């Protein structure tokens, strides 16, 4: 008998659970050895860690606690961001009057005012007022949880599910990174050694919303989803919608991972040891200051850098006419039928296409598109913003589907570049584009058609 025959013989004898059994025995023997040969005089913090872990990583309470924590972070973000957001919007609106007055005073030509004030200024200040407050709250809260030692427990809880769908437990850590920025998260998948599981993590990271999309999700949720509620309840409902969306994104991640691990990326997940650090009292001041200032600031600078040229471009194509139709309107009209199929419209589709370089600018571009054709209201609070959307024929389905499209659609340009750099493969980069795009088209399509069929809209 040669070795290959022996191997196939062994395979017939063996069962797929064998590796798990081997590892299980190794661990059992390890703990037995430790019980015999090692004595611990436990310190207080050790017993505290054990007790807390029994709660946070319990199979029964682990997941509910995680969802509550997630909700809590979003609630703080949404409820806390509303007031500073409108204050900033009002401030920028107030400032705009003076800037316009200044332009009139120096007899600036109409087009210059258009490009600089209506395009650049409005676009960028909208990014700031809509996105800065949620970021300034979301980042530090998340960082505090990480600092306290809770996030590794999340990874521990998620590990069980990731194994079930054929992926690696560390993927939950790279997903947490994706909540900040998908492009950075793609690089962070380097912590996964196995190429197969790493590819899974790269291909699905997009389904967690990055901070470029938080602004869009939070604003649309609070404008449309909780319209009939007021006060604290309103924030609560908005939170519920956002938590639901995030959970949906995670479910899609599991689903796509599962399908891929049964097809193109077949294989069994590898074992790894996750070290749970002790719980620490977070360095409150340090964490809050560092993450809210440094992180929000860098993200904001990035957003403004990309938003400014996009704002100018949008204004220009909205104001250059071929015949009596602007270039923007040609594009919108071309995209509109497709957008309508998904319960969206041509403006939204165009905003997502022009927003390819960075998700942060999708919302401002959309707004500029609407403003350039609709009535030019003074947009200085969030209710006026809703009126603009309503004038364009928005319903709750439009808002929901735009949120879903934003959650599920193709990764931004930077992320795609990073995916190519990390995988060195055009095929996988293209798939990283294609898979989310197909899902982002299918889900809103089904919702829109169902809603129409049932006469909800």
């Amino acid at each position, binding site marked *: 008998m040669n070795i*290959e025959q022996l*191997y196939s013989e062994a*395979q017939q*004898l063996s069962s797929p659970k*064998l590796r798990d059994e081997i590892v299980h025995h190794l661990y059992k023997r390890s703990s037995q050895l*430790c019980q015999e040969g*090692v004595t611990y005089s436990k310190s207080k913090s050790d017993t505290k860690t054990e007790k807390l872990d029994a709660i946070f990583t319990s199979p029964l309470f682990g997941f509910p606690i995680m969802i509550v924590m997630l909700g809590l972070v979003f609630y703080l973000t949404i409820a806390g961001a509303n007031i500073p957001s409108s204050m900033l919007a009002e401030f920028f609106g107030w400032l705009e009057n003076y800037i316009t007055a200044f332009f009139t005073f120096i007899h600036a030509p109409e087009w210059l005012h258009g490009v600089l004030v209506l395009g650049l200024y409005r676009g960028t200040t909208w990014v700031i007022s809509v996105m800065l407050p949620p970021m300034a709250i979301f980042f530090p809260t998340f960082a505090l949880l990480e600092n306290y030692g809770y996030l590794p427990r999340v990874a521990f809880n998620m590990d069980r599910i990731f194994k079930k769908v054929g992926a690696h437990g560390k993927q939950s850590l790279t997903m947490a990174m994706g909540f900040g920025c998908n492009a950075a998260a793609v690089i962070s998948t380097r912590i996964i050694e196995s190429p197969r599981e790493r590819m899974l993590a790269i291909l699905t990271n997009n389904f967690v919303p990055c901070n470029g999309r938080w602004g869009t999700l939070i604003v649309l949720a609070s404008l449309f989803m909780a319209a009939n509620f007021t006060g604290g309840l309103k924030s609560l409902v908005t939170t519920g919608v956002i938590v639901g969306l995030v959970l949906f994104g995670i479910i899609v991640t599991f689903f796509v991972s599962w399908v891929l691990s049964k097809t193109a990326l077949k294989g069994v997940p590898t074992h790894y040891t996750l070290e749970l650090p002790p719980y620490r009292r977070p360095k409150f001041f340090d964490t809050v200051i560092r993450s809210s200032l440094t992180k929000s600031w860098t993200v904001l600078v990035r957003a403004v850098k990309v938003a400014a040229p996009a704002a100018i471009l949008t204004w220009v194509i909205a104001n250059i006419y071929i015949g009596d139709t602007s270039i923007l309107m040609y594009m919108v009209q071309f995209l509109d039928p497709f957008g309508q199929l998904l319960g969206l419209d041509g403006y939204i589709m165009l905003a997502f296409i022009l927003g390819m370089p960075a998700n942060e600018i999708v919302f401002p571009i959309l707004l500029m598109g609407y403003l350039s054709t609709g009535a030019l209201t003074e947009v200085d609070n969030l209710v006026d913003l809703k009126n603009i959307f309503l004038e364009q024929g928005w319903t709750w389905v439009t808002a929901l589907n735009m949120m879903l499209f934003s959650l599920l659609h193709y990764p931004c340009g930077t992320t795609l570049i990073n995916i190519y750099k990390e995988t060195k493969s055009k095929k996988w980069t293209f798939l990283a584009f294609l898979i989310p795009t197909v899902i982002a088209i299918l889900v809103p399509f089904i919702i829109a058609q169902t809603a129409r069929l049932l006469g909800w809209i």
Partner: protein
Amino acid sequence: MTNPIRIALAGNPNTGKTTLFNALTGLRQHTGNWAGKTVSLAEGNVQFKGKTYHFIDLPGTYSLFSNSTDEEVARNYIVFERPDVTLVVLDATSLERNFNLALQILEMTRNVIVCINLIDEAEKKGIKINERLLTNRLGVPVIKLSARNKVGFDLLLDTIERIVNGAIECNPTQMTYSDEIEEQIKKIEPYIREMVGDRLSSRWVSLRLLDGDERLLDEIKNRLQLEEVKKTNEYRTAIL
């Protein structure tokens, strides 16, 4: 010139394995490249009682399955290059997790020393380790070390020397698995032993074949073929 005595260092990441390697070999080290692999390993010599010991610092890994290149390189070195002694460096502050790797190595090779490093930190945390009991249970020497403070080095080098000259005989206790797995091992082990002889642990190879480790299978095939080629060549040169 006789072959140098080769000592391999294995261990989980962050157990102070490289600290131990550096402290032992000092500046007498260089980086070696291993055939067919892009991973490079640090090597260095140590003189002790008139003998030269050649140390090889294997990549830090949590296990020795065919999961990653690092795990494969470390495993293949221990199994196929057959160092005279393999040191497994464990972190005294998280022994339970670290033992896993030591147990795997004890299945693969005989001459093993279990080095429990970071012992000073463990003592600070109130962890007491009974190395005599562990030595009895594992069937190989267990030594407490602090690589940072060079505690336990004499005992370690002395133990290495005594293993090499045969004064200490390692007799690693083998893991026992479920009856079902043991039954399966029994069925194929005799054939494996016939094939690999005493070059590899036939029990370990059987287990890996049952586990479906194709990368190991390929490695064994390559090695067996190489040996065949070598033998025929030797035979040819002999008759010519």
